[in-house]
């Protein structure tokens, strides 16, 4: 009984680059049951240890196999508050699927796709299932409605605390809403998952920039007994090279925020504009660069190139994302470093000068260091550049809490087991503590902090 790994049907590349609809369609119930049958139901289930939020993987897969899709979704929700999101954007190949026993000889169980299937089933058939808790527990403030904050809030609500999330933007979700594009993570899915967190009794306040609208000190004064900081890594890095402020040079954050959060792809129905380049260069080699490149295609670009200073092997993006981008026609220019942008007399970008690179000795990240090749300067033309070379933690909130012990790169220092910061009653986790990482790690950190806060509040009476 050798069942092959089941693959989701997808929109054809030539079709999908003309719309913002999601690329894969998800499993049919038959496919899901078939895939679930592949699972060996291992006693020690190594896959479970590979999951930062401790999903009971064999148990939910078993329920799918039996056709109890709702039961599978409930099983997921016991430990994962955002399964429809994780099923789409988690790098399972580096986590649960990496250690799946089946993967040793052949292909691992498609745990992520199964998770997505069960969660979508539940959202579609029982959208209103969670029940609000009429709790009278202590009040906890959560700052930031990204995956870290949402998870921490949901777990605390489950423990009986009264939780309020303060979110700076007009919509919750963090990067899930403003960063990851519609074609990879439909905003309707994010909305429904957040709605479920609300239904657990969590109060969500948008338009609240903590540090500006309200200070952490005031939160304590208003009766919150503990604070969780999950403000993410939202500060875009630039390369500090000449011409970076020319018209037509975007940070990936701005480009993606305009398109995703502000729906500029629907301009002029939506008021926010975005420049639709014809020949677009995206600088960087991570998921953010892939998302930007694929967005540019969908906005009508004739040619999209990714400029990365190392090679395919070192690129931090998920294989699947690089594959999707290539299928859609994105061209990769490896071992290339931009050194200056050129503009016209009206201040618009016309092209850039680059250096060719070669790989040297490994650096502290273990990847081979790119070294410029002398005299290799060359020039290329373009009309739009998206800089996707990474994000740092936003200093706005830490600045408002002067006593907070900070790490070298603007991160907040925590005890990873509890999320405890250097200050009493203040916890943190997610990208603000680790620097830019992943959705599931942020969720794991939110979960750990919820436990840490629980213990702290129990001990302080």
């Amino acid at each position, binding site marked *: 009984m050798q069942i092959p790994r089941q693959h989701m049907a997808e929109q054809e590349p030539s079709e999908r680059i003309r719309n913002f609809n999601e690329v894969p369609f998800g499993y049919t119930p038959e496919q899901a049951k078939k895939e679930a049958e592949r699972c060996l139901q291992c006693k020690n289930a190594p896959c479970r240890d590979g999951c930062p939020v401790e999903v009971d993987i064999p148990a939910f897969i078993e329920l799918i196999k039996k056709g109890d899709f709702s039961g599978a979704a409930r099983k997921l929700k016991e430990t994962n508050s955002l399964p429809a999101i994780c099923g789409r954007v988690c790098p399972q190949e580096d986590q649960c699927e990496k250690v799946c026993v089946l993967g040793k000889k052949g292909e691992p169980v498609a745990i992520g796709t199964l998770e997505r299937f069960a969660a979508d089933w539940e959202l579609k058939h029982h959208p209103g299932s969670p029940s609000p808790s009429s709790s009278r527990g202590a009040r906890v403030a959560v700052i930031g409605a990204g995956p870290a904050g949402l998870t921490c809030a949901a777990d605390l609500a489950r423990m009986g605390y009264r939780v309020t999330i303060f979110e*700076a933007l007009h919509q919750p979700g963090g990067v899930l809403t403003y960063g990851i594009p519609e074609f990879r993570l439909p905003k309707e899915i994010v909305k429904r998952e957040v709605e479920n967190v609300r239904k657990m009794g969590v109060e969500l306040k948008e*338009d609240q*920039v903590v540090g*500006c609208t309200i200070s952490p000190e005031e939160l304590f004064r208003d009766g919150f007994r503990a604070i969780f900081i999950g403000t993410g890594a939202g*500060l*875009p890095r630039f390369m500090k090279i000449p011409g970076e*402020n020319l018209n037509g040079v975007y940070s990936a*954050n701005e480009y993606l925020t305009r398109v995703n959060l502000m729906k500029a792809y629907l301009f002029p129905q939506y008021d*926010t504009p975005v420049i639709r380049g014809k020949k677009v260069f995206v600088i960087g080699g991570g998921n953010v660069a892939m998302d930007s490149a694929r967005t540019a295609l969908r906005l009508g670009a004739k040619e999209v190139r990714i400029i990365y200073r190392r090679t395919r092997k070192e690129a931090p993006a998920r294989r699947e994302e690089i594959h999707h981008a290539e299928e859609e026609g994105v061209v990769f220019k490896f071992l290339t470093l931009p050194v200056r942008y050129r503009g016209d007399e009206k201040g618009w970008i016309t092209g850039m000068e680059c250096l060719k690179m070669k790989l040297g000795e490994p650096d502290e990240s273990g990847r081979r260091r790119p070294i410029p090749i002398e005299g290799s300067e060359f020039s290329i033309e373009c009309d739009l550049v998206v800089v996707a070379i990474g994000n740092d933690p936003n200093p706005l909130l830490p600045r408002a809490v002067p006593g907070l012990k900070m790490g070298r790169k603007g991160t907040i220092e925590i005890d990873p087991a509890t999320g405890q910061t250097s200050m009493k009653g203040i916890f943190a986790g997610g990208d603000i503590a680790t620097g830019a990482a992943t959705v599931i790690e942020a969720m794991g950190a939110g979960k750990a902090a919820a436990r840490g806060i629980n213990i702290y509040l129990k001990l302080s009476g």
Partner: protein
Amino acid sequence: MYRITESRRLTPEAVLLKIEAPRIARKRKAGQFVIIRVDETGERFPLTIVDSDPSTGTITLVVQEVGTSTKKLGRRRTGESILDLTGPLGHPTGVKKWGRVACVAGGIGVAEVLPVIKAIRGAGNIALAIIGARTQDLIILEDEMREAASELYITTDDGSYGRRGLVTDVLCDLINNGSIPDRVFAIGPVPMMRAVTALTRPYNIPTIVSLNALMVDGTGMCGCCRVSVGGETKFTCVDGPDFDAHQVDFEELVQRQKIYLPQEKESLQRYEGF
């Protein structure tokens, strides 16, 4: 939802709004701004907090209707609401006792400079307000200015009211008459701020401008609002909006304000139903 408790037309191009936002009303300081989103399809855009009343929990905004977003807001009536309002954002204007301070403002900048003048006088300075408009009908907040400032000078381009000419003419006269101000604040259209900066540079008069870069989030997350100041890139929303005028690259600011000219036109034509 944030309720509009008062919407009052000041001129054919400008509307004053009072909006319920109790926390912002309590916290805001001179020079700070809010980000607004009027409706579901709306942009996020910045407006200066002109005044606030902590007792009623309202803030005062004055909006000049130049495009889709500002017109949408200008058409909201008393009792109606807007979807989103975030703030107070940006650093408050730094105020000390300097002596005689000239506050130069043109167009909608007059509303933006009003809280600065109040703060400056509050710190024991003499505040000379020099305000200008194209024509008499477009002068806003004259009574409030007269009350707030130590002295008020008004200019109009066409001479229909006050002195004929530009705000910089008044500042130029002050300097030529030997009553050089100890510090200058300039808020308004870029050409005006640029002219003031050029005027004060030879005399080394410390000059502060409030920059109106395009913005999206207003919290330092996107870099849309970047400006070059003293050769370094700054984010207007979190590093400003006030900067040392003599360090600002105005050319770049002017160019960056024009990024979306064709789309702004298209959007407005659609909104106005052409």
